[in-house]
């Protein structure tokens, strides 16, 4: 018993830096932020309890609804696109071709570029007048004898969000690496068996690859949900929420309320709603996972 206690004590001692950090810098602020969400609080004066007033105010706040809609809209575009592109790239990079390592490095490299640098780069790529994307599109349209304008991208409220979703694909390198690890775990015998059963390329992907990497897809889905709902830095740098709030996200509204308008209580209420949305969507993903996620050996 004494030995077990000693072992436990040692374990806790090694764990304590993280545990104390988690309790003091994560759990406590989360708990306190819930109290603040029930207060009028501007940081400088003591919080004044106002009950659920911040939450009822949010219900009538057009900007909040706009930001919420934008967040879901972005998630609906960026999340499936990111999953498909990263899985597709991983499958291509899993094929044994000359220079495979170089291709893998090239695909992974953009995710190493700092966000600010990526944002500045994409502002140039998406520049309607001089940007590479529109220059190529214009040539393509000319080739096809199409008399249509190239998209104004970030300048137009209708195009700004798709532009940000497009840019989000730039950072799929991390997910690709995770998929690659999963793909390499798929037993070759399964592909051979499928081939013997007459499965073509797509048949093998659909009946072998996808089910076998479904735990990895599930992991990437959860990370992508959290990432997409918390998107902040790229739109903050590239559009600051504009034009006319078309790229204004919940996280940006939270930030503005907390640090620009000094309404910390209101910002805390937004944070809690965001947390609930993330929890709900993650919960749905977990609930549905029993139907489509297959673990080896189960």
């Amino acid at each position: 018993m004494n030995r077990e206690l000693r072992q436990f004590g040692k374990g806790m001692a090694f764990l304590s830096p993280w545990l104390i950090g988690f309790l003091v810098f994560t759990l406590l602020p989360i708990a306190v932020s819930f109290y603040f969400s029930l207060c009028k609080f501007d940081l400088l004066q003591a919080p004044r309890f106002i009950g659920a007033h911040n939450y009822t105010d949010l219900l009538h706040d057009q900007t909040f609804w706009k930001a919420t809609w934008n967040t879901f809209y972005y998630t609906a575009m960026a999340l499936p696109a990111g999953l498909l592109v990263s899985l597709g790239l991983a499958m291509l990079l899993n094929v044994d071709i000359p220079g495979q390592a170089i291709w893998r490095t090239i695909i992974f490299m953009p995710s190493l570029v700092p966000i600010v640098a990526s944002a500045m780069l994409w502002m140039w790529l998406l520049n309607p007048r001089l940007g590479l994307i529109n220059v190529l599109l214009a040539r393509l349209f000319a080739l096809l004898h199409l008399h249509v304008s190239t998209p104004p991208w970030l300048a137009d409220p209708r195009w700004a969000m798709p532009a940000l979703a497009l840019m989000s694909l730039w950072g799929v390198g991390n997910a690709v690496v995770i998929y690659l690890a999963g793909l390499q775990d798929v037993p070759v015998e399964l592909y051979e068996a499928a081939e013997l059963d007459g499965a073509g390329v797509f048949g093998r992907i659909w009946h072998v690859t996808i089910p076998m990497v479904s735990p990895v897809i599930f992991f990437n889905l959860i990370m992508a949900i959290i990432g997409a709902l918390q998107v902040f830095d790229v739109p903050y740098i590239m559009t600051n929420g504009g034009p006319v709030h078309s790229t204004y996200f919940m996280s940006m509204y939270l930030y503005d309320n907390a640090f620009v308008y000094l309404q910390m209580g209101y910002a805390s209420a937004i944070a809690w709603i965001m947390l609930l949305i993330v929890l709900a969507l993650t919960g749905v993903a977990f609930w549905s996972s029993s139907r489509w996620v297959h673990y080896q050996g189960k």
Partner: protein
Amino acid sequence: MVLMIASAAAMLAFGPRPELGAPPHRVRIQYWEKWTGLEGQQMKEIVDTFNNTVGKEEGIWVDFVSMSQIDRKTLISTAAGVPPDVAGLWDTQVLQFASMNALEPLDSYAQQYGLTRDHYKHVFYDGCKYHGRLYAIPSTVWCVALLWNKEIFQEKAAELRAAGLDPDRAPRTIAELDKYAAAIDTWEIRGGTRHLKLTGYIPLEPGTATNVIGYWFGASIANPSGTKVELTSPQMFAAYNWVRSYSERLGKDQLAEFRSGFNSGATGLFDTPQNPFLVGWNSMEQQGPWMAAFIEKLKPSMNRWHVPVEQLQREKNFDSVAIGMSEEQVQKLLGPGDSPSNGFAVAPATPSGTEMLHWLAGIKDLYVAFIDGKVSAKEAKWLPAKMRQKYCQWGAAAFPSDMPGLKDVTWAGMDVWVIPSTSKHKKQAMEFIAFASRQDQIEKLSSEHCNLSPLAVESREYWDNHPNPYVDVYEELAASPNARPLPRLINWPQIYDELTQVAERSSLLQGTTAQILSEAQERCQKELNKALNVPENTNLDSGSEKSQ
């Protein structure tokens, strides 16, 4: 584990420490400032001068800390009870912070040091007041004017004359500005579609004062006591209808596409070589005095229009003049020199063996000092600001107003020094602010930042050496009775964001002007009531702020 703890303890005990540098027996005060880079360095020089002079006499030592996001850091440190003793904020925060009792009132301190209303241009001093009390001291200040590209005006002289306009001057009324803009606008065909190539003027470009554009139409945006937002006045309607008129004339999509080509990003960056005014895509814009510094840095040729080629070359070659060079070598680089006698102008009363020689280089006077025939020092000095104007490819003038009789309208903004209310060394903090506000110090700082002096009277040296050739235009505007500070609203950052939406919606023709403004009015008043702790649906009458 033991090793880890031992290493950490050793690091704490013997690890590196910041260089403190403060002599003993001095009260140390913390000064946080938003200026970084060169601007920060220039302020640091003033801090060093203080520490070595007045600070030495009074037993004060200032620790200068340059940082980004100073407003947020000051706020959080004040909330935590460990604020700096002096903070360099923006005018945007003065009312916001003062209304939360985060700032120390400075009236009695300011009086003691002679920093009175008459010492300053009134618009800046008044902008530092809240409910009759002074909460900040202006540091570097600015206002906005209309910049115009003289070269484009000349290129479009025929079109301008055909429209009955003078290509040798800036527009003087809003109606005239619109006519100038329309005459200059140029289109091109790309990919089978029509695109803007050059604009005369775009109301939202670069956006420096878009959210107070109502000022030029006689609007007030809020009542003087800051209890009512006034976005639905006829003047505000005229202002945003005007913004809208450019999208209607040029096409909202074409205008948006053209503007997005400037790559100014989310924050409306203008200090880049892609600035449309510098590139020559936009011929007029509303800008502050700092733009002169960016012109000199990013497109110096705009400051050297019609300067003789040999003088331009001379200015370039001046960089190669090195200490120890002979007179012959210098002459080879700079030419025979500009003097009435032997090619050299001898400077007045130089020490024995020292000869000061002089050359003209367009907007600069070049001086080289020789001792015994060898270069001992060199200096390039601006020509007096006003004399440089004739070489500028750009001009500056008061931004036109829409109302007859309403002249020299401008928005006057500023950086400020404040003392947080929980500072532990208020007296010493004020001693430092008073030193930095001395005419010699504040004018040096203002010139170096290419901003204006907040003082009511400027020195001759300031006028001559200011890097902005049009400093006279800006100074005159800042001293005008129609110079206006930010609206007296304690939640201005929030109202500012709402007005950004108003401007963008107007420009994109999303709804009628009346509809856009009335929706914004409702939201802004609601937010203001919330900030003022006024129950909803309370009708607050307009009133004047007694102190102002």
